[in-house]
């Protein structure tokens, strides 16, 4: 494993979806969230958290903002 999230320079990320994910993770971790807390829900995400190029990927914090329960971390 040689990737270090904190060392990735966003401006060098070519893919917009990967860039949004990396940005979302960096902000979420800086806010003190765990990666599990930032995981999108199994249940459908609410429409108020859209994503896309040029838009902060709020769905990365869905567990933080969205109270709808889901499977979370269970595999089945």
């Amino acid at each position, binding site marked *: 494993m040689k990737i270090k*999230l904190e060392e990735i*320079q966003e401006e*060098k990320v070519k893919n917009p979806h990967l860039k949004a*994910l990396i940005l979302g993770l960096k902000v979420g971790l800086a806010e003190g969230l765990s990666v599990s807390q930032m995981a999108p829900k*199994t249940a459908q*995400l609410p429409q108020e958290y859209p994503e896309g190029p040029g838009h902060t990927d709020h769905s990365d914090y869905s567990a933080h903002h969205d109270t709808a329960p889901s*499977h979370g971390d269970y595999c089945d």
Partner: protein
Amino acid sequence: MEKPLTVIIKPTRDCNLRCKYCSVGDPDSTYMSEEIARESIEKIAKRYPGSNTKFIWHGGEPLLPGLEFYRRIIKIEEPLRQEGYVISNIIQTNGSLINQEWAYFFKQHNFGVGLSIDGPEEINNRTRVFEGGTGAFRSIIRGSQILGESGVNHGYLVVISRHNVDSIDEIIDFMIEQDKSYKLVAVAPIGRAAKAREELMIQDKNFSKSQLRLFERWLQEGKSSQKQALWKYVVPVLTGEPIECIFEEDCQQSFIGVDSNGDVYPCGRFCGSGEFLYGNILKNSLEEIWNNPARIALSKRSENLEAKCKKCDYIKICNGGCPLQGRLNGDINNADYNCKEYRTIFSTIERRIKEEVDIK
């Protein structure tokens, strides 16, 4: 602060479907009594003041016990919530029995709902069938529509087996059309699937190929639901932190399973496996269950993993994979039987991310 606990609880092993890969095996008519349900909820929720517990009602088909069973569950949980315990409910159903009453109940009581579906009609009906062989697709979709019309958030769970592993693009397209979040789970050779390995098990590199195809589609299309399905692979590669029960260093800190007769196991997948029976919720104290030698051994798995795991580049984000799937590979301390597939997935995603972020 102690971690939230997820309880995979089986109100019955009975089912109205006969899916070819069912991890439970042949259905039986055991239904959970109210006494067992009450003891499970109260004993586990009260493990410490203000605990956070998530109950995943699993099966068998968890709607078969009927709505009245779940109304009693709410009556058991409500006083506990008023005492400060945090309790949530999720139900994993085949969807075929959902009607307006169920949907209203789920909405009213904030149940998360997962529907099991294996893709569009022709693909789903290869595996998910009623007794007699009729495909369940239309019943599942009808259930999903009723939930949607009632405003109940729900996602899909897709089991990847030999029957659909080569149809990943059709499955991804179907999920886009349905606008649903979903998870892809590799079939495990347990229960009914253990008797049909040749027909069901994914051979060679097909599982990793399906996941990596989804990864490439996400890079191109960027759908939120695709990202959700890939979260357990992509985010650990970026952050170095494992995600999902199968990759946790000690899943027993976060998961436990209760079978319909009150027997307690490491998780839902272990239910019925005598060697890992921790006790019975009616007969044993929680302390006795927690201190069961099998649970302690499972908790120490990361220390006792086989040598090849300890040398692996991905040990920190995989932790040897699922202990049950290690056991299927000969011993709980062995690597998950999907080890090669996981390595291929992690290493390919790592290489592709490096290309995308311009890291040498």
